[in-house]
């Protein structure tokens, strides 16, 4: 799996030449649907809960980079998320309230509310109390303490489940969406002060209830509700009268979100549309304002289960698994990256690891791993050809996890002899034996105690060591031998960062180890002296991919804001090439890309070649060539193809971008190939069924299979 530099006879090696690509599409990775979004206005951090119970943390101010992922768990179903300051709470149908530990990426504490399944959780504007709405019809108040939460009391119990809650900005009243009605409670007394009856959908059978999926409570005592009859209703909470009714959809209005200044409201529907309402005066110059339906966005194919307003953009997510950031153009003056529509479809981390020498690839699914051996082809062909496959790829192994917890990281050693994975509570290491065509695995039983769990795993190039990133940015070094493994050392950062490490990289000569954590810190440790070697200057944007060059031992880093750096480990400084890149500046087209680089590899045949990839392309950076000029074409492969060979040299630049394979999940190489993986999203599904009945299985059934690609000599 690598680049073959089959440069044609006589021609200079300046021309990149041909590569054999293994295009792998059997990685059946399927992201899970989005259930809830919570946007923290203060920190601009966004939490997204998925149907599989996982929570992803996106940094809105750092190019929507997915900084952290808290792996999911079977049976954990999150219905709502809620930020209290920088603490994240969730509640779900298991009836438990969970506070997450965002440093160790696991639940910190779990409290049963004893009210049956919880449908909603919300914090009062003062940040002192949490209210949860339960299946049994109670609204429960919890006091937020420094080290947890404590049950305070129930409000008056109503008949029917509480599906949605919203605090009045004063914190003295709360509105609750229920079946067929909305109830207003006084917090002090706990009594219901108002009851707003929501009528059924026109023509609906009598016994079919109208579900109030979402309510918002405004400072001027207006209540707005979204219900299963497809309506957004505006109520006067003083008089209990309906002011305005908007028929938005034939099906359900599933979620509402109010902007901070209470002038804009967005509603997500089960038709896949997001509808914006604005508080505007109907006639020019008049004071009287009302809620007017202004815009409809259709970026989803399925139910929109969660919406949020993030200042200048609307964020929405739903059953079609993608997160859509739709900028509100009136809030942008200039066309920029921030004013472009963005979609997040895949995790910003690697789910595929390659055993380069053994031509194996390991696919990480939420609850199992698959190990595949790639196919082979002897043939030679001209560019554009498909070669005859002499040996088909083979699935060697499928490994199911023990327990309910999902896999958070996995790795296969370069020789293919070791395999490791970790969940939030356990780390498992297996020895893989290949005997002719048989394969057998043995679980290593006596692991050192420190190897309790890991954020990230990585094997050394000679497969003799395993590195496991653990709590407080520490890395455990474990030496491996045929039947035992020993804890050798633990590296701890001098900065004392408590953030999790999300990237590990080891040099080919086994001398250096680099770690990157969510504080944007990159530490380099020497494996020979077992000491911290140095720290790369902190850059403002998160590290999305990094790797150490096999021959020069330079660390190559790609950041979420699309900048790339090269750092010489031995000299502890940025290389000349990196300085030149910063001086000249990257091409604007490069900076405009909206998915981060998710892996860095190198071409073993040509040390000047660095291979990067994001979701839509992979790029070979040839450091021996000049950087693209400001106004030259960045994506110039087609232009170069059409040119005679002599002219190409003049127009060549360092960035060789290939967009043939989309979407790409992974690109790597081995003694001779470069693997990449891609997948297609679920096919469109028309919102004919009300949201509640649309299950994830349906989406999955309609989805195409994932795919993946590899390049070899």
């Amino acid at each position, binding site marked *: 799996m690598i680049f073959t530099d089959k440069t044609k006879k006589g021609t200079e090696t300046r021309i990149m030449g041909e590569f054999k690509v293994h*295009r*792998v599409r059997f990685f059946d990775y399927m992201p899970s649907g989005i259930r809830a979004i919570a946007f923290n206005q203060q920190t601009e951090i966004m939490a997204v809960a998925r149907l599989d119970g996982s929570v992803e943390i996106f940094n809105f101010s750092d190019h929507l980079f997915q900084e952290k992922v808290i792996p999911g768990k079977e049976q954990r179903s999150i219905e709502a998320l809620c930020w209290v300051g920088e603490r994240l709470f969730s509640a779900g149908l298991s009836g438990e309230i969970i506070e997450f530990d965002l440093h160790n990426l696991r639940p910190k504490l779990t409290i049963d509310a004893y009210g049956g399944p919880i449908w909603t959780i919300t914090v009062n504007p003062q940040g002192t109390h949490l209210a949860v709405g339960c299946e049994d019809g109670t609204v429960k108040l919890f006091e937020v303490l420094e080290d947890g939460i404590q049950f305070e009391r129930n409000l008056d119990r109503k008949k029917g489940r509480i599906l949605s809650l919203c605090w009045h900005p004063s914190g003295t009243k709360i509105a609750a969406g229920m079946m067929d009605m909305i109830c207003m409670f006084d917090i002090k007394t706990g009594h219901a002060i108002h009851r707003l009856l929501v009528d059924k959908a026109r023509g609906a059978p009598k016994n079919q209830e109208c579900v109030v999926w979402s309510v918002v409570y405004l400072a001027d005592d207006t209540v707005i509700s979204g219900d299963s009859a497809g309506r957004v209703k505006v109520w006067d909470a003083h008089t209990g009268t309906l002011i305005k009714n908007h028929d938005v959809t034939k099906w359900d209005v599933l979620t509402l979100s109010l902007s901070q200044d209470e002038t804009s409201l967005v509603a997500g529907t089960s038709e896949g549309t997001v509808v914006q309402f604005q508080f505007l005066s109907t006639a020019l110059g008049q004071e009287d304002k009302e809620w007017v339906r202004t815009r409809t966005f259709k970026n989803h194919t399925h139910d929109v289960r969660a919406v949020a307003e993030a200042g200048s953009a609307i964020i929405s997510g739903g059953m079609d698994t993608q997160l859509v950031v739709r900028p509100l153009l009136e809030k942008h003056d200039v066309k920029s990256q921030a004013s472009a529509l963005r979609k997040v479809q895949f995790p910003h981390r690697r789910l595929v690891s390659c055993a380069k020498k053994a031509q194996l690839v390991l696919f990480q699914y939420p609850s199992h791993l698959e190990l595949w051996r790639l196919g082979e*082809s002897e043939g030679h062909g001209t560019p554009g050809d498909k070669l005859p*496959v002499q040996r088909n790829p083979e699935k060697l192994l499928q490994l199911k996890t023990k327990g309910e917890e999902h896999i958070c990281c996995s790795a296969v050693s370069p020789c293919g002899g070791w395999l490791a994975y970790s969940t939030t509570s356990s780390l498992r290491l297996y020895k893989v034996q290949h005997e002719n065509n048989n394969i057998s695995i043995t679980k290593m039983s006596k692991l050192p105690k420190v190897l309790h769990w890991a954020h990230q795993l990585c094997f050394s190039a000679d497969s003799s060591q395993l590195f496991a990133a653990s709590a407080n940015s520490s890395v455990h070094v474990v030496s491996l031998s045929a039947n035992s493994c020993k804890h050798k050392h633990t590296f701890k950062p001098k900065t004392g960062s408590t953030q999790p490490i999300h990237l590990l990289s080891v040099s080919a000569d086994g001398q250096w180890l680099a770690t990157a954590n969510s504080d944007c810190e990159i530490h380099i440790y020497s494996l020979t002296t077992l000491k911290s070697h140095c720290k790369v200057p902190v850059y403002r944007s998160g590290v999305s991919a990094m790797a150490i060059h096999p021959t020069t031992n330079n660390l190559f880093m790609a950041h979420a804001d699309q900048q790339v750096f090269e750092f010489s480990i031995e000299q502890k400084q940025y290389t000349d090439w990196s300085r030149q890149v910063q001086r000249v500046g990257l091409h604007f087209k490069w900076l405009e890309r909206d998915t981060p680089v998710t892996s860095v590899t190198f071409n073993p045949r040509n040390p000047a070649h660095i291979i990067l990839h994001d979701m839509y392309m992979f790029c070979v950076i040839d450091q021996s060539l000049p950087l693209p000029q400001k106004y030259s074409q960045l994506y110039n*492969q087609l232009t170069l193809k059409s040119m005679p060979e002599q002219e190409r040299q003049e127009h060549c630049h360092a960035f060789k971008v290939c967009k043939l394979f989309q979407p790409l999940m992974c690109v790597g190489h081995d003694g001779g190939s470069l693997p990449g993986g891609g997948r297609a999203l679920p096919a469109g599904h028309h919102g004919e069924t009300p949201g509640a009945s649309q299950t994830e299985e349906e989406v999955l059934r309609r989805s195409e299979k994932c795919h993946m690609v590899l390049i*070899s000599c």
Partner: protein
Amino acid sequence: MAALFEGATLCALSVEQNNTESGIQGIELDRDDDHVVVTDSKRSVTLYKVSDQKPLGSWTMKQGQRITCPAVYNSKTGEYVVVTDDTVIRVWKDDDINIDKAFKATVSADVWRIHSAPGQEPVILFHRGATRFLDVLLAEPQQDMENVISDDEVIRWSNLITSGKQQWVLFITEQKGEHFLHVQSLGDMTRAAYRLESTGSAPLSFSASARSGNLHILSLYPDGCVYESAVPMRLPGGVRAEALPLPRTLLLRLPLGGGALASASAVSLDAAHVAVVGVPHPSAGAGKDYLCIWNTNFQTLQAGKEMAGRIYGQFWCYHRKLYVPHGKALSVIPFECQKSSLASALGKLKQSGGCEMAPPVPLPSWGAETHEDASAAGMETRRNKLTRKSHGASNVSVDQLIDQIKTGSEEDVQKAVASFISKSDLPALQLAVGSLASALVARSLAEPSYYPHKVLVQLVHTQCLSHSVCPDLLKLALEKKDFALCQFCLQAFPDIPEALTCACLNVFLSTPNSELETVALETDSVAFMEGLSAATAPEDEEDEGKGTRQNGFSTTASQEESSCEAQPTPHQKPKLPIPMPLDMTRPIGLHRAVLLNEILQTPYSESFLLPHLKELTTPHVILYLQYLQFLYVKYYQDINTQVPALRSPTMTQIIDWVCLLVDAHFTVLVMAPEAKELLSGLHGFVKAQMKLFTDLGKIEGSLHALKKVKKSKNNGQYSIEVIELF
């Protein structure tokens, strides 16, 4: 295509008998394109509203004063400016009644012209070549004027050209028989002088225009040549005493018919069109009182209009309207110049269908003088110049040949022409063939017994002939019932007028079969027709009675069918097929079919063809429709086993003709009882076809979808591919 529309008389001219002057000094544009200021040669200035042909105001100078320069409208101030007695500038407004009370200023030098462009300050050009803006001049009327041109130089013509924000004053001077072009840029006040190439005779008129970075000067010479010269807009810097030579290209050579032009004028309308007044129409005799628009790209006449009365060699063009003084009137003629395509340019040389036998386009002094600038040839192009040398190399000159044609016997002429054709190279041939054919046709017309069929066929076979080059050839062939020549002409001419196509059709349909079948037609097209009819019994109408049929139709049945119709002519017995007869027999004779096929393949334009189609008689229409139906059904049957042929009518051509025929004779066909069955048969067939095609459409959709599906399947779960990066 360009077209001249119906004009209107703007005003009458007060011209005395035999006066060569029109009495109009100038016509200038007023505030918009609907108002013009007409200055007469005496003392008055009149403002006209063009669309109403009505004077709106008139101002007259006092007795004894003389207007020496046409009045212009200063659109910047809304005033009129005129010069009287060479040095007095008068400025007045619309509401001034008495011009004498208006503002006047006397300047220090004689004024030649005032030029004004909309939205720009008027420019004064003095006799000695100096230019001043009006406002600058009026600020200090007595300022000294420099001499730009030498004392014995006289301005002949001047104009103001505007392109974007730039303006140039162009004027042509004459000095000792030589003409000079002076260009004065008004922006940077640079100036350049050029010497025009001279031919001995003085140019009749000039016209200037600006396009694609150059100033173009068009000049018309008495020998009918229209030359164009281009001057770059950016004038060479520095004052140069020496006048630069200005090369010219021959844009157009107008056919003169005889005699030089005396009072004619040419104006460039756009990059490809030139309007000429006072030259003869190439197909309307020697009268010179025509207004014509020529396309210079294709050297074709685009539109022509006869102007009654004398032409004064003056005309103006403003905003798609030509102002032509002629006889005793000033006419306004709107025109239109569309972008020409070659197809539309061809064949429209002679649009007026009802023209009398025009004398062939003469080539008076071809040959001997070809190395010189020969006097007018039928249509000479710039290219001719290049090819003339090679032409001269052939042994017999065209002139000699034409002389021989005029008197020689048919055999001699044939030999001479054959040797001429074999010896001449293609470009020379192209030039000569037209004149040879014209001479031959002229003689044939003059001597009814003389008809050199073989020579004419030879000439047509050169593929160098077209209808517009020799308009009478096809007519002659039709008259002489020379169907073979007709066929060749129909094949070879790309530009047969629709009227003539229809005339051919009429003749082909009405000629008795016996006459047709004896003609030797081109074998390939005959073979095609035979092949097409091979499936069924090749059937001539004449054979009908013999009762030998192989295809299931009994003779009697067919006869019954035909006997119940009114039979138009004894020669033709149109048979009506029963609805959907897939094994139809050919309703007409082989040779008639071959000739009709040629008609089918002739290019035409629907709107021109329709009126002429109406002239066909009903039996002919029905017969033709039957034949078309036969072809249609045949084609439908043999869609895959097409008979190979070099030329064969296409399905589209057949369907188009069916539509045209039905359109042209709709009411007649509906009323005629004999057409009923034919139409219902056609209708049934078309209906069935429609059904088939609807179903095919559905299949197309599914096949398309299948293709798409297949494409996505190509990307299997795993593949090894080779890619190349550069």
